[in-house]
């Protein structure tokens, strides 16, 4: 086991992803904290036929679906809230390029809980009685569906409820605000289902906006909801959620949210977007240039910035992170 788990983004994607895999994003949803940059890298490495597990859609799934890299997805909410419908995902669904299996937001969280517990099924008191139970995009000819959310009899009362299938994605790429080099992570803002997902997934890679010293974790162990013992790799990537937000670190980039979603509405727009905002940068610096240094300054001036204050003293500089990463690479190579 390396003394730290810092890995470059491209290397993490090379090592832990493959065509056809069940890939989960860990995010605050739908337009909050999500490692959208991990999805960009999946496209850069031309991953295909992904089966996305997204508690809710984000711009990441919107992009992966719009660009044709995801052919299956399961989610709760599939829009972009006030930003409207997710045009890339919508286009992929309407054209039949992607089969979208619908659940509710609680159902997705409960299925991850069930995967984490290794239960064979999860009691379902929601989604039953609606078309979410009766219709399956993965088995469209079975109506009403008997296998998507089958019935189970409560042995105490004898009454029937539903049963959700647990989720155990091959990989969870989880966006966190702060991680230490060992893989301990702090999320600022709602977790959504990142706690359960980190235990349900077969492997976990963290994508952190900032890297802190482990002393930070020892000062705030109750904030460390993802402990290092379940983490494979830590990727440092500032503004990893851009154009979405990361509480304490940066606000949503409203104009890029709209620009991106508009682009994903068409094939040509998507191709242009991929050319300009996926394939166009070579490292963190050029990625930040792409966002624009003025934009970065503006987005960083968030009403939530004070949430980061207690942790700033432990944040490592890019140079310190580079040194640690080099150390790690040497150890891995050895």
């Amino acid at each position: 086991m390396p003394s730290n788990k810092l890995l470059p983004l491209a290397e993490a994607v090379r090592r832990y992803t493959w065509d056809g895999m069940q890939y989960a994003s860990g995010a605050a949803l739908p337009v909050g904290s999500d490692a959208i940059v991990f999805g960009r890298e999946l496209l850069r490495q031309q991953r295909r036929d992904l089966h996305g597990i997204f508690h809710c859609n984000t711009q990441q799934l919107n992009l992966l679906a719009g660009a044709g890299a995801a052919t299956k997805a399961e989610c709760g909410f599939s829009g972009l809230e006030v930003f409207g419908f997710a045009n890339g995902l919508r286009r992929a669904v309407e054209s039949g390029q992607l089969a979208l299996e619908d659940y509710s937001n609680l159902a997705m969280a409960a299925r991850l809980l069930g995967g984490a517990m290794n239960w064979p099924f999860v009691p379902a008191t929601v989604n039953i009685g609606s078309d979410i139970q009766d219709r399956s995009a993965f088995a469209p000819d079975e109506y009403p569906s008997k296998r998507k959310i089958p019935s189970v009899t409560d042995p105490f009362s004898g009454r029937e409820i539903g049963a959700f299938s647990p989720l155990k994605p091959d990989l969870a790429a989880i966006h966190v605000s702060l991680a230490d080099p060992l893989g301990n992570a702090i999320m600022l803002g709602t977790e959504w289902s990142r706690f359960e997902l980190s235990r349900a997934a077969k492997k976990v890679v963290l994508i952190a906006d900032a890297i802190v010293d482990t002393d930070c974790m020892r000062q705030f162990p109750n904030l460390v909801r993802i402990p290092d013992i379940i983490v494979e790799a830590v990727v440092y990537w500032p503004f990893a959620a851009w154009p979405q937000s990361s509480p304490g670190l940066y606000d949503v980039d409203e104009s890029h949210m709209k620009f991106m979603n508009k682009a994903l509405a068409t094939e040509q727009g998507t191709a242009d977007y991929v050319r300009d905002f996926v394939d166009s940068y070579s490292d963190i610096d050029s990625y930040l240039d792409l966002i624009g240094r003025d934009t970065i300054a503006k987005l960083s001036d968030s009403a939530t910035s004070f949430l980061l204050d207690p942790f700033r003293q432990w944040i490592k500089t890019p140079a310190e992170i580079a040194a640690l990463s080099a150390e790690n690479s040497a150890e891995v190579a050895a």
Partner: protein
Amino acid sequence: MSTVANENLPYTRQEMMAIATGRELRDGELAIFGVGLSMLAGYFAQAHHAPNIRAMTEGGVYGATPVGGLPWGIECNRISANATSFTNAIDALGFLVASGRCDVGIIGAAQVDKFGNVNTTGIWEGEIGDSYRLPKTRLTGAGGANDIACGAGRVVIMVTHEPKRFADKVSYISSPGYLEGGNARERYGFVGKGPSAIITTLGILRPDPVSKEFILEAYYAFSSIEEILASTGWDLKVSPTVHVVPEPTPEELAALRRVDATGALRKA
């Protein structure tokens, strides 16, 4: 949604809808709001007549009121900036909503039918049929609204009043209302009692206590029974006690506009 302001009124139709929705909430209740209009309606209630409403959003944000205008989403920084607690979806949607603890939820609808069933999943031409055809238009899916519809004590549905949105039968039930009406919900043992009102841009519909069919209970100063009937895709019944909804008071409008700082409800 239609956002055309009526030039003769000191408020927009959407503002009237938000205020009418907010009036459904009572002080001290445990309430869950979705994003957009329903959040504004909820926080309006808190700002105006229900200061001790215990508000939360789906991801588990507690004790917050939006800053800087309409949040972009239920986990947006505008709602994260002054929260007292952040937990998670299992907590908000499971422990507090699906469990039956939540008194009231506000949800939106792309399409709603006469039994208050909500479709936010897709638009098909005609019935879907026995094989699950692709939708002509994919919408947003159920999100947390299904969980609210199953678990919250009562549910308020907000929807723009247009014939295509008010269907005799929704093509896809994303979130259950009263299903086929009557006691149909009991088959599933839902702990929530179902939708108590559909608040629209034109008026207020409530369910018949026995059949659970929604009937017209009230219209706004700027709308009429005729306009509502013409805008409803089913043969809408009118309550014998149908009446005009009181117009927004200056205090209500002021409170709403404090919450809707960026004027989302006043934009065309």
